[in-house]
């Protein structure tokens, strides 16, 4: 990007300015305006104070400080915000990015070394941004004999499926991007997509190394899906519902991990296998098959796949928290919003301003989010730990574990759940409510 700047000439400068203005107007009118109208057609706009809040109205109202907070609040409670920002993609991507950095530092501490150090003033905190910029500026190389449409689509499908998975996890009471009544079944259906995408991307790259990697990934993911589903049947039996929000609400007095520890352990091992993390990272085994099914991806395609992998990590850890560790339940540690600000307004010196519409988020929601984040971060740290401790497992050991040992343990778990239910200990009308 090093060009020698030509000499300054006023006529050339004015010509380039008008050129830029022309292009901006053209793009805005031909593409931007229709896009805005499509958005307006399909997004449900909130109703504030009896009036439909169109963007024009919102901008005029923003000038009045007494109406700012209700507008923001109504925007926050739309579906769009939930999908993009809070419990959906934005929140997940933020946690995923933080996970990547924490993983590198955590592993480095176990291995008695420093990890990223030089990007950013404090201990390399901007390393992730540097990696992202690097990946964006790299050339995307497509192998000549690869199947081009599928090869281009594969990372996009991967990120899309991973993002769809993160949309099902409830973070706070009432805050979830998608809440189907058969939530757990939807989770299983989405997890079932990942082997297909892996095999598609490895097959389309048309190389021996990706072929071996893809076959191994297929074996691994399929043989661990069954114990994953079976280990969660215990919870479904005891709670009687497949809806993830209801499962969290049923854990108000005790967490399910207390009664079904075996199911929790089996689920934990299967999520490490589904995420292709060490010790189960055969599909990307570096010393045997270069990089497995990821070999031929370069530049931003590799970046998208890494993003998808870490979104999956957040989603599985969130699922573990929701199902076994009580989701957002926890003692109320968030301080309540001071009542005087609502009644009397904020006083700074001689000025008192009344701001109606506060608080922005209620205390329950913030407390729930705090506990959810603490528990999920704890689960993520425990998932990161085996990376520093175990070597890679071999394919026949993996298949043996997945098909014999884990299915056996999952059945033991189901019998324990049935025993607890029919023994009258748990469930409706049981000893422990």
């Amino acid at each position, binding site marked *: 990007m090093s060009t020698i700047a030509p000499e300054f000439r006023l006529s050339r400068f004015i010509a380039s300015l008008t050129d830029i203005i022309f292009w901006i107007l053209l793009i805005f009118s031909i593409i931007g305006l229709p896009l805005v109208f499509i958005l307006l057609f399909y997004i449900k706009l909130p109703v504030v104070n009896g009036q439909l809040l169109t963007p024009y109205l919102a901008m005029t109202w923003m000038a009045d400080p007494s109406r700012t907070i209700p507008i923001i609040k109504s925007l926050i409670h739309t579906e769009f915000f939930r999908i993009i920002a809070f419990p959906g993609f934005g929140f997940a991507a933020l946690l995923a990015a933080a996970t990547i950095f924490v993983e590198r530092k955590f592993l480095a501490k*176990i291995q*008695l070394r420093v990890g990223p150090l030089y990007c950013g003033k404090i201990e390399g905190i901007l390393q992730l941004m540097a990696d992202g910029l690097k990946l964006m500026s790299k050339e995307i190389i497509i192998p000549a004999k690869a199947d081009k449409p599928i090869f281009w689509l594969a990372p996009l499908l991967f990120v899309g499926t991973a993002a769809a998975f993160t949309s099902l996890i409830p973070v706070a009471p009432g805050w979830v991007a998608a809440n189907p009544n058969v939530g757990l079944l939807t989770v299983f259906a989405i997890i079932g997509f990942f082997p297909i995408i892996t095999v598609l991307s490895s097959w389309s790259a048309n190389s021996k190394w990706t072929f071996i990697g893809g076959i191994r990934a297929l074996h691994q993911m399929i043989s661990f899906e069954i114990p994953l589903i079976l280990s969660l049947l215990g919870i479904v039996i005891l709670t009687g519902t497949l809806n993830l929000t209801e499962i969290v609400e049923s854990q108000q007095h005790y967490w399910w991990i207390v009664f079904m520890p075996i199911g929790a352990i089996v689920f934990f091992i299967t999520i490490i296998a589904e995420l292709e993390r060490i010790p189960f990272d055969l599909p990307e085994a570096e010393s045997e098959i270069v990089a497995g099914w990821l070999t031929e991806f370069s530049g931003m395609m590799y970046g998208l796949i890494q993003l998808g992998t870490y979104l999956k990590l957040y989603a599985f850890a969130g699922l573990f928290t929701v199902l076994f560790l009580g989701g957002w339940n926890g003692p109320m540690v968030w301080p309540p919003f001071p009542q005087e600000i609502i009644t009397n307004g904020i006083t700074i010196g001689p000025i008192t301003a009344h701001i109606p519409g506060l608080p922005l988020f209620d205390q329950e929601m913030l407390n729930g989010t705090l506990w959810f984040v603490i528990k999920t971060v704890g689960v993520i740290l425990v998932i990161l730990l*085996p990376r520093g401790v175990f070597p890679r497992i071999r394919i026949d050991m993996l298949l043996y574990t997945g098909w014999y040992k884990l299915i056996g343990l999952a059945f033991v778990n189901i019998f324990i759940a049935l025993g607890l239910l029919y023994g009258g200990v748990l469930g409706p009308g049981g000893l422990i409510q």
Partner: protein
Amino acid sequence: MSTAGGIIRALNSGVKHLAVKRFTLRYPEQKLKFVGDGFQFDPQTGVGIAGLKGRHILFHDKCTGCQLCSVACEGIAEAIGMVKVKETWKHNKKAIMPQIDYGKCVFCGLCVDACPFYALYMTNDYELSSFTKSALIYTPSQLAVKPNISQDVEIKIGKRGATHG
């Protein structure tokens, strides 16, 4: 059951190491300490004096231009060539002194072993990189400069592990 025990012991070992100090030497900010002044050789006893084999230092008031260092290096790396110098010394009638090409030198120190006049030693200077190949050829006057090296840390073994401190 022994596999479960082994797995738990391995995880325990990993977690224990979260409390051990990091061993890294943070290089440009911290530099290693050395004992002594660099590798030297005493031709009378025929034994060297221990030290780091870094950049050479040439003492102009002792070098007689005998070329033995260049002859020793010919079979090894051919890094020493003799060049004419403008200074006049009584003991250096031919007015030649060695010029060392650090692009070729392998820092074995056999030239120091070959010098019979206590004129060529090695110092603790190891940061010799440059932007051009020709800048790596050190003339006799460049070799006479005594280097100024910062030395900060060494390996210290404490209760929570060894560190460079």
